[in-house]
């Protein structure tokens, strides 16, 4: 069974060939190439990975991601982004990026329904409804890391589109307004409360067979260093609620290369779930991603 890192980012220096937006931890001269990632993967016996677009939502800004996918088609799949300006009619953008390219889905940071949970709900009015509708039509994956205000709204769309494969990012945590910052290693940090709202929103999505959970992002949420013992109980809970066949391990490269290190994260599941059964371990470390995201056979 191949071992698959189900989430991370690569990017090139800003050039005419590979245009992208620059940010605080992605300055124009920084590059985190796919070849560098492959070196880390080889060192930890990781075979394949999901590359999640970073650096802009336009088709042109996906150039480096598309380059990586076409260069190593049996090693990587991709997740794209959609500009908010295209949410109302996203079909052309989604098709251009996903038709035969290796991009198998799209990441969303919002849902776009009524913010008041007591308001009447009609999913057809949600800002991202056309995206879900097109994902259903084209069998695309939706990759969700949505703002806290929208956490409860995911369920309405999951309920409306049982045929859409959904991946909940980073332990189901939905970042709260004003809770993000960057640490001394340039890594995203999100302040979270211990009794987390996710317990009653995204974690409840285990009810739906078309939803999987990604075990990643610990470095951004934990108050403790690796192996993040304050979040170990979450893994145990997920194993009981989602089951290993709907859990995927990921590192969120490149943010973790320096701290705690790719090799350490490759051992995280063994640290946090020491009593896990071998077949469950294999599922979390690659089997689920291979089946749910349809990774190709290695050549």
């Amino acid at each position: 069974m191949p071992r698959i890192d189900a989430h991370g980012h690569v990017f090139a220096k800003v050039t005419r060939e590979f245009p992208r937006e620059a940010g605080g931890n992605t300055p124009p001269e920084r590059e985190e190439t796919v070849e560098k990632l492959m070196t880390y993967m080889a060192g930890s016996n990781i075979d394949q990975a999901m590359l999640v677009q970073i650096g802009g939502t336009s088709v042109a800004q996906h150039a480096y991601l598309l380059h990586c996918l076409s260069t190593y088609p049996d090693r990587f799949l991709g997740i794209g982004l959609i500009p908010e300006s295209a949410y109302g009619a996203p079909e052309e953008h989604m098709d251009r990026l996903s038709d035969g390219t290796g991009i198998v889905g799209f990441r969303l940071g919002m849902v776009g329904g009524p913010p008041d949970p007591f308001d009447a709900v009609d999913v057809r009015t949600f800002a991202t409804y056309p995206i879900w509708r097109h994902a259903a039509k084209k069998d695309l994956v939706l990759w969700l890391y949505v703002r806290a205000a929208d956490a409860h709204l995911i369920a309405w769309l999951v309920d409306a589109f049982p045929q859409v494969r959904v991946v909940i990012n980073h332990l189901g945590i939905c970042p709260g307004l004003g809770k993000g910052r960057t640490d001394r290693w340039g890594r995203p940090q999100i302040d979270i409360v211990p009794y987390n709202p996710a317990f009653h929103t995204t974690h409840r999505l285990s009810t739906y067979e078309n939803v999987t959970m990604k075990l990643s992002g610990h470095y951004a949420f934990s108050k403790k260093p690796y192996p993040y013992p304050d979040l170990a109980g979450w893994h145990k809970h997920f194993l009981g609620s989602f089951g290993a066949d709907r859990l995927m391990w990921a590192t969120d490269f490149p943010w973790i290369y320096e701290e705690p290190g790719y090799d350490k994260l490759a051992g995280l599941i063994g640290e946090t779930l020491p009593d896990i059964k071998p077949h469950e371990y294999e599922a979390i470390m690659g089997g689920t991603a291979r089946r749910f995201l349809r990774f190709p056979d290695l050549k």
Partner: protein
Amino acid sequence: MTVVSGPTPAEWKQWEEQGYLVFENAIGGEMLDRLQQAFDHWAAACKAEWLDKIARGELAATYYDIPNVLEKDEVFIDILDQPRYFEYVRAFTGDDMIFIGEQVRTAPLWPMGYTGWHPDVPPDHPLHIKVQVYVNDVERGGGEFAYVPGSHRPGAGPYPRVKNLEAMPGHKRFPGGAGTAIMFNTYGWHVAMENHTGIPRKSIILTYEKRTPGKIDPGRYAHLAPWLNTPDRLRLFGMS
């Protein structure tokens, strides 16, 4: 202190074997009117703060608890020792109980329940009793409380992690009118069922526990002293 009234032998038996009791019309008349008015008033008054905390990732949107209710209206203290059920709390704790918390809760409509089946505390925890009081009518399929009778008993289970709440073996559902109170031993497995009625469920969940030394800080509720005007209330709040 003398027990004025309380469980009949049959009710004792049900409590011990099944882990729950139901009190229809436990709250009624003027008391229920006061409760409903205070509930709606403070739910509206505090809603903006709740929505803000949802956006900041501090609270869930799938249930709404009015914060710090004891300081907001005396009716939220009066409900703690309503004799219809409080005499049972007294009896089951050996007349030695403390107040743990009060959740004044509205559950908005959502495609599923906001929690799965669960016990609150393990059986080696001091006896932990909840009383859930419906503030509006809660019909079957309206987010009503449900319990697995007997699941509080030592050696009961194991119970499956069911994705469909209705698939829990042996569970019993408790629809009821406004003012109905359901008392249960929280060692037992319970849940709020899904709500398909279109009407958000309003209820108040009172939590009591068998007193253990050091559990309650006498100073914690000192600011409420003017309203803790009976020996029972002072004891509940650890002030005597």
